[in-house]
């Protein structure tokens, strides 16, 4: 099977969808001729034309607003927001419009828009190229929220998102574009070409939205994470020699409560990890849901490990990032409690 990094896998998903469905169009800043600042759309305009892969003015509100209009008029738009940190000008169109159109028109109008956006830290991007705002989007009813952690899932989930008739905000953990990253910057970078999840079929396939994946089976504790934190969790559990079951949420909305809670009921312990700030982060929703469903099976309070409740500081990138040390300490605490 071919090996792809996450950039190539995403590119392949879009290539396939542009070829399969003449209604699929892409729009975003620098995505066309240039191929995107992370090169995710490289070559697509050359192959499918300027009328299907559109460079746009720098106006995220207009990109999403126009995508809604295109969607209402029969197209299937895939919008790119260059960095998740720059999605806020589009939030009125996302929250008030895209998310509610189907509801307020009793199903008569809807727009199958996918919004792709790179998120997360670890690239020395400072506070405006490092954010993880996924939690904000999960708080709005009517949009699906997805974040893959492997090239295989990235391709399958993106195809599923584009085919989905509901709007999807698709977060791409950019630190994983070129390889898995366990939070230790001093280790040499690992490319996807040496990783089993870098094996990606050339052709069409989907990974269903709304299904979590157990990436490591274990019995001592359940670690619930997504995006870059999957690899940090693996490293922390390995370092402590703890037999953790690690679950990749993959889809925050809708949430696969079954897979998560079945695991927690089995292990009796749970640690939740994300890069985003802790307070009112998606971990709070996970923790509440798990507590409600698994209370009588829990042997210890649910732990949460996250980014600090500050903006992402340029100079303190690795003190900010919830790396293996912080995750290990949290894991230890969950194991020792009660």
């Amino acid at each position, binding site marked *: 099977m071919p090996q792809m990094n996450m950039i190539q896998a995403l590119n392949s998903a879009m290539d396939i969808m542009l070829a399969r469905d*003449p209604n699929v169009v892409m729009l975003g800043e620098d995505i066309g*001729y240039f191929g995107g600042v992370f090169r995710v759309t490289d070559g697509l305009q050359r192959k499918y034309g300027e009328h299907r892969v559109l460079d746009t*003015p*720098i106006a995220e509100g207009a990109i999403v607003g126009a995508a809604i209009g295109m969607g209402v008029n029969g197209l299937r738009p895939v919008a790119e927001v260059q960095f998740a940190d720059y999605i806020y*000008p589009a939030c009125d169109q996302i929250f008030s419009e895209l998310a509610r159109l189907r509801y307020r028109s009793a199903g008569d109008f809807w727009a199958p828009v996918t919004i792709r956006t790179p998120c997360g830290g670890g690239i020395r991007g400072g506070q405006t190229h490092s954010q993880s705002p996924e939690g904000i989007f999960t708080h709005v009813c009517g949009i699906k929220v997805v974040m893959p952690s492997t090239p295989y899932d990235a391709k399958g989930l993106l195809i599923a998102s584009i085919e989905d008739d509901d709007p999807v905000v698709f977060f791409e953990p950019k630190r994983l574009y070129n390889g898995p990253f366990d939070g230790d910057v001093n280790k040499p970078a690992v490319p996807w070409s040496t990783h089993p999840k870098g094996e990606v079929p050339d052709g069409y396939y989907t990974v269903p939205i709304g299904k979590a994946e157990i990436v490591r089976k274990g019995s001592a504790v359940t670690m619930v994470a997504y995006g870059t934190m999957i690899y940090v969790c693996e490293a922390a559990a390995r370092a402590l020699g703890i037999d953790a079951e690690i679950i990749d949420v993959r889809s925050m909305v809708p949430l696969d409560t079954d897979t998560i809670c079945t695991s927690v009921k089995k292990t009796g312990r749970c640690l939740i990890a994300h890069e985003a700030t802790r307070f009112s982060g998606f971990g709070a929703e996970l923790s509440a849901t798990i507590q409600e469903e698994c209370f009588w099976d829990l042997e210890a309070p649910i732990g949460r490990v996250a980014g600090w*409740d500050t903006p992402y500081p340029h*100079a303190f990138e690795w*003190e900010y990032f919830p790396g293996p040390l*912080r995750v290990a300490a949290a894991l230890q605490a969950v194991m020792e409690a009660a």
Partner: protein
Amino acid sequence: MARRSRLHIPQHHSRPGEEPDFSYLETSPAGAVPRPDVNARVRDIGSLSIDLVRVLDDSHVAVGPWNPHLEVPDLQIGLRHMLLTRIFDERMQRAQRQGKTSFYMRCLGEEAVSVAQGMALRPKDMLFPAYRNQGLYVVRGRPLVDLMCQLLSNTRDMCKGRQLPVMYHWAEGRIFSISGNLTTQFPQAVGWAMAAAIKGEDDIAVSWIGEGSSAEADFHHAMLFASVYMAPVILNIVNNQWAISTFQGFAGGEQRSFAARGPGYGMAGIRVDGNDFLAVHAVTQWAAERARTGAGPTLIEHVTYRGAAHSTSDDPARYRPKDDYEKWPLGDPVLRLKNHLIALGEWSEERHQALAQELEVHVTESWKEAVQYGTLTDGPRLNRDLMFQDVFKEMPEQLRKQREQLRAEQGV
């Protein structure tokens, strides 16, 4: 299922491997554009937003009604500031290449915008810059060491390590904090100007964005508020032809000038040769007086060219001809002012060489000092506790706890 699209897509004039083509650029001869009274009515000065105000002609002589008649020492200071900005940029670009800092953005070819404007304003006027206005700091006299320490995120970093390089601020020097989010400063500058008017003060606010950034809604919000309240503000669009990989046609420049949006909102609009130090100075003085006397805001479009890559993360060879900048019809602002001074008999190649050398030494000395306070790779480092300060005025309990947790994690 081939369809025939009827959608218009703005067309680049020349792509990598092609001959640079600037036939789209409409210019006016130096001295040709009339200079109206500063309190002229918007409806009477519409052509200012379409023509191109130029003062320096092809033989390096200052001509026409916009000639600001600056004193020779001021011209020499302007040249010095522009040259220092350029040498500083080159050195910082190299520092990034050497891994001393993570990121840098040059303003090569656009130096006249910040320097001439900075000089035409009063020290108390409040500036709301974008990330390519480093010349403002040079004009207002911030020591280069301070800028370098920000670039290095070191122990003397004015941002305490929180911002990406080049996102400076200077409260005392009245230069607002730069945001990574494009165009947000535009309505803020208008609000600052409204406050000055409310307080009955005659300071004005001035803000800058790139032409690409004029696509954001914040541009339109700013224009609307500025014109509704006749706010004492100058709003600048630096049209350097490129927004990363997309040329100005994608920001709306294909059909009409950016300056013409001024009259569209009921405010004065001026299109100026952004590489002509004298013209930029003159239109800024005009707009400042107009704002200060309550005659209303002005939108200025500076027609210039982004000579360098967008940033150290960018490779322009992917999207424009390699020799595009050399073929730019409006030339190099530093060279043009230098030639003007030579034409006046007030400058020479020898003096220019000597100045360049002096400034090189100044930049090198500043750098030597700055790295003593730390670099991205070498200590000393900022205290990590600083990460938790200034989220709020008083640190809430939750952040105190997190600070303790980090101390424990790091074993301190």
